[in-house]
């Protein structure tokens, strides 16, 4: 009922989300490292990178919600930005292997030696430095989003057409990365990582730290998104989503607003991919597959489009379900289940989980306000 309250960067829901996230970021590593495996509260080793993976997906979902939920841009190719961030990190991790590779070449990664390459391609230069890779994690997806968005939004491509070309973008990248001469390991991708910043990626301590880093990245991404959508900029985005022509006639450059949101979203997806790769230990072209991007959109729809927290929650819930169902007897039916889930959410819960929750809360508050409006009416008269 009170719009001022909802407009604050940190309202009730946002605080709750951050507190839970930080608690998890501390608790999971602590319960994993400090308790003996026999303890009932011990978090098993396999679970830490798995949960870390979910948190990275949540950040990807958040980045999609920023543009889909608030600016109305349905990207069906956001996995491309995630994968590019992942590849940038993968290149750093590859160059850390050094002489420990199968061919023990100090400079060239194994797959290049295997392909009989004698020199490092120029675009692999400097990736042995973490800071450089970290910049590329943000810069490469951001630059692609800039070029793509510049053309698409200026020529006013919207709706289904935009969704289709985002899909084509990720598909084209997938085909490119599958090729050996592209220089990114072909269909095997990049794997067999050894260390990150001098720490063994396989060690339990590193994995715990990576999990905490995932949570911190999600928290920062969430804060940036909240700050943006609660500002006047966010109001303009929603205005563009609901009535783009009207917004232009008011004097706003809709394409600049969309472009900024799109680039920011791509950078966030890139960071998600970069933290994901050391936890799963591999990045290959299948990450670009259009199906991955569509799945990410489903997470957002399930959790609630335009709610931010919902996107993150949706990503974690759907992926938890995926892990559960793809490891048991139900494994062959997972895709049917996912499709069914999407249909069910669209038909029965179009606001998603968090969206429905908020809608119910708003209705309850509106009803209560209407009630209280009726009751105190005689008071001023009585005071007279």
């Amino acid at each position, binding site marked *: *009922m*009170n*719009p001022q309250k909802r407009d604050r960067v940190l309202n009730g829901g946002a605080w709750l989300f951050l507190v839970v996230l930080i608690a998890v970021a501390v608790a999971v590593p602590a319960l994993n490292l400090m308790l003996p495996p026999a303890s009932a509260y011990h978090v098993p080793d396999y679970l830490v990178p798995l949960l870390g993976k979910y948190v990275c997906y949540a950040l990807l979902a958040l980045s999609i919600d920023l543009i889909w939920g608030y600016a109305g841009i349905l990207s069906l190719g956001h996995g491309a930005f995630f994968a590019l961030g992942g590849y940038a990190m993968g290149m750093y991790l590859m160059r850390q292997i050094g002489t420990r590779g199968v061919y023990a070449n100090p400079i060239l990664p194994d797959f290049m030696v295997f392909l009989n390459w004698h020199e490092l391609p120029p675009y692999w230069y400097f990736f042995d430095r973490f800071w450089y890779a970290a910049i590329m994690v943000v810069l490469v997806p951001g630059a692609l989003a800039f070029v793509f968005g510049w053309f698409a939004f200026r020529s006013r491509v919207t709706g289904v057409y935009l969704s289709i070309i985002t899909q084509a973008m990720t598909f084209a990248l997938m085909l490119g990365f599958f090729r050996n001469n592209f220089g990114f390991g072909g269909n095997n991708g990049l794997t067999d990582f050894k260390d990150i910043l001098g720490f063994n990626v396989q060690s339990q301590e590193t994995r715990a730290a990576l999990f905490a880093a995932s949570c911190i990245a999600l928290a920062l991404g969430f804060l940036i998104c909240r700050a*943006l959508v609660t*500002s*006047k*900029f966010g*109001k*303009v985005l*929603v*205005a563009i989503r*609901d*009535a783009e*022509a*009207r*917004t*232009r*006639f*008011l*004097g*706003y*450059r*809709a394409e*600049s*607003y969309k472009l*900024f949101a799109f680039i920011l979203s791509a950078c966030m997806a890139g960071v998600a991919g970069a933290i994901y790769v050391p936890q799963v230990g591999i990045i290959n072209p299948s990450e670009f597959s259009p199906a991955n991007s569509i799945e990410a959109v489903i997470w957002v729809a399930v959790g609630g489009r335009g709610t931010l927290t919902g996107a993150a929650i949706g990503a974690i819930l759907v992926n938890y379900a995926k892990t559960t169902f793809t490891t048991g007897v139900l494994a062959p039916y997972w895709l049917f289940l996912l499709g069914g889930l999407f249909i069910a959410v669209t038909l029965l819960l179009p606001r998603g989980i968090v969206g429905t929750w908020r809608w119910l809360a708003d209705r309850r508050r509106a009803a209560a306000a209407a009630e209280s409006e009726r009751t105190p009416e005689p008071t001023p008269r009585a005071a007279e």
Partner: protein
Amino acid sequence: MEEPRTTTALLYLNGVTVSFDGFRALNNLSLMVEIGEMRAIIGPNGAGKTTMMDVVTGKTRPDEGDVYFEGNHDLSKLDETEIAMLGIGRKFQKPTVFDMHSVNDNLLLALKNDRRPRATMHWRETLDEIDRINRILNIIRLKPERDRLAGSLAHGQKQWLEIGMLLAQEPKLLLVDEPVAGMTDEETRQTAELLKEINRDKTVIVVEHDMAFVRELDVKVTCLHEGTVIAEGTIDQVSADERVVEVYLGR
């Protein structure tokens, strides 16, 4: 490049032609609106009234002809955003407000202000803005609805909110497309009053079907037919014109 014309008119259209797939929506249309004037544009369906507004606001580019604002801005070379920033505001035929924003936020987005992304990111509400919004809420009589979502307003209220948004833009020229469509008689009367009020310090062009409303406005009337002006003058002169009677009643 043509030299900018010097004309005293705020809006100057000369020989404007627009075709869609061979259909001439505007055919050698010429029109001049002076500063401070209120002009009513009438005409049967398909006369080109909305296309004329599209040309003035940059939504449609003319195939031929000149469109000048304030004598020196060639509107045929600018896009919607640039034209809006020059000071031309538009109300659409179908009320178009931001349904998911509150009445207050709809006005806030329309308030004359820096429109660039960087400015909106660092924006903080000022007392002056609250004051300006309050003043407009009083004019359009929506103060009690301030925190309601615009999507939940009644049709007439949405029309008024959109007029309020136009006011908030502080344009020099207001283009108002069918402001009383779907309104009750009482609302129609109030809207006429509101537009007269606005006309005290702004130039207004109203496109309308409702003759009673146009009569109420009591301003110079231009009648369009098949994309061209067929009559201009007071409502009595125009409605006495043979061709106007012919196009309205059929032959």
